[in-house]
């Protein structure tokens, strides 16, 4: 059917691009994270653990190491925000997806289309919109003071809540689609069976529907958690640079702060976190397979 060798030549460009622009460079990240900071930015290939040490300690007046949680705090905040984002996305996606899956015909198609549509709009524009809504004299502040409910609410920006609003807004479509797909596949007979066995709606929801939709929820959770972990725009604009996440910590090290090895070390930590999530997910899938086998 195919010319001999197409199996090889057809795959080659994609594999080569990934090898040269991703796999090898990721190796370089690891190497750089163990190297020394250059005198004028950049790095020198001299082995050092300084960058990893810096994650936990700062060097005091007399060269002694002092435990300094400033970076751990950023890592912790990042994990917490990413996890909370994932949880909120799941909580709002599930009912919305369930509702859409219950609709019929054309309406279902339109609703699904409307859910996906905002995701196509430029990320930076979507996050920027929240600046207008949450900012001082913004939509919320302006409306509330005009109605005389709250006077001078001021800015709602530059805190964890604002970042969370932006993160959920950015990534919720990535959750709703896989969750919808799993609800759509649900056999209605099972819900009816639960009902016939006197399972009420909430019991049916938690004992029948939710367990059956778990694969979709897990897929959505991974899809949301990974980009939230690496979020850059949301903390930069809505967190105002004070409430940093790992993504802008990395970006700063390669920009203003010019400490490439430290930036690389934070990137390695981030890859480690992603890998941990993937491994947990794979283990879960394997256990599931063992159970059904």
């Amino acid at each position, binding site marked *: 059917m195919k010319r001999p060798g197409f199996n090889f030549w057809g795959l080659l*460009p994609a594999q080569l691009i990934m090898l040269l622009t991703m796999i090898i460079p990721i190796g370089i990240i690891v190497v750089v994270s163990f190297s020394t900071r250059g005198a004028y930015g950049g790095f020198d290939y001299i082995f050092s653990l300084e960058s990893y040490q810096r994650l936990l300690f700062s060097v005091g007046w007399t060269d002694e190491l002092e435990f300094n949680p400033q970076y751990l705090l950023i890592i912790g905040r990042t994990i917490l925000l990413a996890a909370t984002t994932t949880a909120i996305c799941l909580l709002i996606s599930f009912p919305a997806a369930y509702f859409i899956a219950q609709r019929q015909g054309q309406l279902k198609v339109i609703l699904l289309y409307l859910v996906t549509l905002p995701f196509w709009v430029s990320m930076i524009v979507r996050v*920027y919109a929240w600046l207008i809504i949450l900012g001082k004299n913004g939509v919320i502040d302006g409306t509330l003071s005009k109605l005389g409910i709250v006077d001078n609410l001021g800015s709602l920006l530059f805190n964890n809540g604002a970042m969370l609003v932006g993160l959920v807004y950015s990534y919720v479509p990535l959750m709703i689609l896989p969750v919808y797909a799993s609800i759509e596949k649900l056999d209605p007979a099972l819900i009816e069976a639960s009902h016939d066995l006197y399972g009420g709606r909430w019991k049916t929801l938690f004992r029948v529907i939710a367990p059956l939709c778990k694969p979709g929820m897990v897929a959505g959770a991974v899809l949301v958690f990974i980009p939230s972990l690496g979020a850059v725009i949301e903390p930069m604009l809505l967190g105002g640079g004070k409430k940093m996440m790992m993504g802008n910590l990395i970006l700063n090290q390669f920009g203003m702060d010019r400490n490439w090895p430290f930036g690389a070390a934070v990137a390695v930590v981030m890859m480690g976190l992603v890998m941990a999530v993937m491994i947990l997910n794979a283990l879960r899938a394997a256990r599931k397979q063992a159970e059904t086998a």
Partner: protein
Amino acid sequence: MGGAKTDVKRYPGLGLFVVLFFFYLYLPIAVVVFFSFNASKLASIWGGFSMRWYESALQNDALLDAVKTSLTVATVASLVATTVALMAALVLVRGKGVKFRKTSETIVNLPLFLPEVVLAVAVLLLFSNIGLQQGVTKLIIAHTTFCIPFAFLPIRARLQGMTLDLEEAAQDLYAGPWTTFRKVTLPTIAPGVFAGAMLAFVISMDDFITSVMLNAGGATTLPVYIFSLIRSGVSPELNAISTLIILVSLVLASIALALQRRS
């Protein structure tokens, strides 16, 4: 009984919740569009209807330069990515006796498994190691890499949904492999290929993290330019620019989604 059965699938307040959900999805977009027609200089205080910000946006040379850079990068990157992804998908879905099929597929989709900021660091270190200076070239290479999986997935889906019958019929009629591909396979999977190319194009146009990290000398992309505008204070011109971007993305999205629906 029928009433009771539908009742158990129904949850009180769900309809209201969904209305609020859609409100949340579209409020930010509506706000930007609304204030883009604001005559007032203050970005979020209404001062009457005006088109002046559109006029000044369309005369803004820095903006037009950024659009040009973004279009160049996105066009080249999405074309290369789609071609490469199409070849890979043909092998991975259709190839017989492909070794390491699963691993190969993971490698093609690798950019999806990592946060973009990590990929951005990776290409930055790569380019600094090989001493590549050319801004647009750097952007094209980096964008091609992360666009490949976005082009690959719709093409793969389309290929998986296609039966082998047509191709086998073509071969029975003595069509060579190239002719079969050109006359039978490609026309059948065309919607998937277009959807993939469109997705890759939008992803590239939208990219901020990689572009800002590479900080490509002179080559400012549209999202990076918008970011610099936001940093220098929210201006109503920004709302006009954003509205134009929203308009273009919604048109592209509608085309791509319609294509996918047909496939």
